[in-house]
């Protein structure tokens, strides 16, 4: 059993702040898509088992959920998800696509609208984080999945990996519409190690801790 590689207090703080900035920008983009204010919680960042991550969502949600999922790859890899209760799905589509559409039109464009929303929110957040860490990330095409937390959080199809993951999540809600959900991110252990190194570089850069040893 590998001892989990845990982030230092300042690294944890820096990662939370990176996520906070990424998600805040995404919220502003989402606000422009739906035309109403988007409220975010403070991000929660934890190193947990995959099972615990799934349980965390399942405990709060009894019904079926819909998620837009995007996998990312680069210096660190993982999966980003925009998750909401299935009962909110059409309301979100309506908010994005316009209130003037009728039921059948809304239903017809559900998948497309969800994909596009997920793309804006998840890409925006990941791109901001990648820029701040100065490493590019490749992002897969967004995919709509339905089910529960167990399904969303299996990184590989063959779930042989019982190890810990880095789990980040934020609650969001859209005022004026009964829409709420989660933005979640999952990274496996090798990625966590790479991420830890990048966060270290990021901290040095922004605090100027490397100024001492350098000219100019």
């Amino acid at each position, binding site marked *: 059993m590998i001892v989990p590689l845990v982030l230092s*207090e*300042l690294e944890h*703080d*820096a990662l*939370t*702040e990176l996520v*906070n*900035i*990424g998600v*805040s*920008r995404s*919220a*502003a983009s989402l*606000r422009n898509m739906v035309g109403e*204010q*988007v409220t*975010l919680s*403070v991000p929660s960042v934890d190193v947990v088992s995959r099972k615990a991550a799934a349980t965390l969502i399942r405990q709060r949600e009894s019904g079926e959920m819909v998620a837009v999922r995007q996998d990312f790859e680069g210096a660190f890899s993982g999966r980003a998800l925009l998750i909401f209760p299935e009962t909110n799905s059409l309301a979100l589509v309506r908010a994005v696509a316009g209130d003037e559409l009728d039921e059948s039109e809304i239903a017809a464009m559900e998948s497309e609208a969800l994909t596009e929303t997920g793309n804006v929110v998840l890409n925006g957040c990941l791109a*901001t984080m990648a820029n*701040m860490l100065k490493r590019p990330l490749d992002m897969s095409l967004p995919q709509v999945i339905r089910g529960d937390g167990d399904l969303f959080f299996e990184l590989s199809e063959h779930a042989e990996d019982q190890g810990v993951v880095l789990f980040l999540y934020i609650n969001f809600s859209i005022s004026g519409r009964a829409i709420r959900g989660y933005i979640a991110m999952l990274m496996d252990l090798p990625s966590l190690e790479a991420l830890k190194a990048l966060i270290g570089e990021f*901290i040095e850069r*922004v*605090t*100027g801790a490397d100024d001492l040893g350098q000219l100019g």
Partner: protein
Amino acid sequence: MTTTVLIVDDSKLARIVVGKALSALQPEWARREAANADDALAVIAEGGIDVAILDFNMPGRNGLELAGDIRSAHPDMPIALATANVQDEIIAQARALNATFIPKPITEEGLKGFLSGAALKLRQRG
């Protein structure tokens, strides 16, 4: 008299970054720090705070709510709200409280305008 800036952010790293930009732009100014709205109000109640830079998304009350509290007791204090969350509603609420919007991540460039404005305001007041 020394000008004292209160930096409020739940992220220690963010406070370090603001502090660094602040000492580059206004090396003479002193700074205090708080990690949440309640601590910030306690520091302000002690007196001696001239300028406040507030994070928006914090556990407990957010930066806008804190700005509202500070504003009612200190109608003239220069206040900045720092966030990457540039939603129209948030900008409008900041403006209504006469707080300056500063984009996150905070840079010297982003902080410069607010600090020069604050310095001018404090000088005028004497």
